[in-house]
């Protein structure tokens, strides 16, 4: 199926979030000691105290503590990664939109705006790489997402454009980043993760 249109977003959101979550959150009181210890490690790596109540996504994933830890470590690695954060968020938004992922989309609209992207920029991510107004480099980032999502590989032309601005670590990081946030979309959609801070989901701008 082709890329979601703004009109199709409501139906997609119903498909993902129209039913109850498939795996219930683990109440804090029921955390086994291993889960508590892993939470403290993860939040220490983030430089913050373990919050009293975890976001629903974490309160579900913590049922598999080892995987929760790896997922959080990977997320921290990308957040502190080689790709500049505004460019990283451009890629993540395009992934989340293509994946029809309401939770990931709305969460990263907020993060992208914190990186300086405007509401109009968010609309342009939906319109895609061929929309007016992107720089060549920005367009290549969006194209790389579309190429990975469509053909599991970045084309020579897109790679060449990215190479003009990015070093090897950044080039290496991009396909891994796109894969990581696709993974997050797959798990969040599959467990029907309830929408978080922004209940608009795919309608967030």
């Amino acid at each position: 199926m082709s890329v979601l249109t703004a009109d199709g977003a409501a139906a997609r959101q119903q498909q993902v979030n129209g039913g109850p979550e498939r795996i219930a959150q683990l109440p804090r009181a029921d955390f086994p000691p291993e889960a508590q210890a892993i939470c403290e490690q993860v939040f220490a790596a983030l430089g913050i105290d373990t919050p009293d109540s975890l976001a629903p996504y974490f309160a579900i994933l913590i049922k598999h503590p080892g995987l929760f830890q790896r997922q959080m470590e990977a997320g921290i690695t990308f957040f502190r990664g080689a790709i500049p954060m505004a460019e990283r968020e451009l890629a993540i938004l395009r992934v989340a939109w293509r994946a029809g992922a309401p939770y990931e989309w709305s969460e990263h609209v907020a993060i992208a705006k914190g990186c300086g992207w405007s509401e109009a920029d968010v609309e342009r991510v939906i319109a895609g790489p061929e929309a007016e107004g992107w720089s060549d480099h920005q367009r290549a980032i969006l194209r790389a997402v579309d190429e990975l999502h469509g053909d599991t590989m970045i084309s020579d032309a897109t790679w060449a454009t990215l190479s003009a601005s990015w070093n090897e670590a950044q080039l290496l990081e991009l396909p891994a980043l796109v894969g990581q946030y696709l993974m997050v979309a797959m798990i969040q959609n599959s467990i029907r993760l309830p929408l978080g801070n922004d209940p608009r989901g795919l309608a967030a701008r």
Partner: protein
Amino acid sequence: MAASLIRDAQDYSAEAIAAREAEINGKPQRIAELQLEEIDGEAREIIRTIRSSTGKESDSVIPGYMRTTLRHPALFRAQMQMGTTIFKGVLPPRERELAVLRIGWLLRAPYEWGEHVDIGKRYGITDAEIEALIVGPGAPAWTDHERAILTAVEELLANQMISDATWATLAARWNEQQLIEFPMMVGQYVATAFVQNSLRITLADHNPGLTHR
């Protein structure tokens, strides 16, 4: 309703396979692998730690894929640790490998497919089942549970979500940890294919790519 990772035209003729392999591996790697003497102490320590956790000899040959992604040590560490956790995870290895092979095939990823033909066979997947994995969930070889695993792979790749019917079949056999691990495992191997294909990672000598059986 999401965009699909699976090509509309599923052409697996010998010509189409050869064209795909040429597209990916017909040119040199886009980022060169590190030579052994370029791998510094920190990187060696990461490799040693990961290998000791999987029971491998720490000084055995470091594959070219690892020597390439080591150019980004933090990413290398995170991905290897995630990979190890999934490899030693809660899904039965044979069931995991059925899924990985179907992912590698549908994404037409020569490196991933070829490596996992060998890995899958170590976990009991037969030659006939390798052929059935190419056919997909409709092949007569599968139990209901195995068919649900392969269907879930296709749903995740095509729609980035597992359907109610498939989830219900999986949940009849798997516990919550396994149900959480499965879509993340699929995502991990999609990410691996993205990196291996995009970097044009050279196939190892034992790996003939998509023609491997």
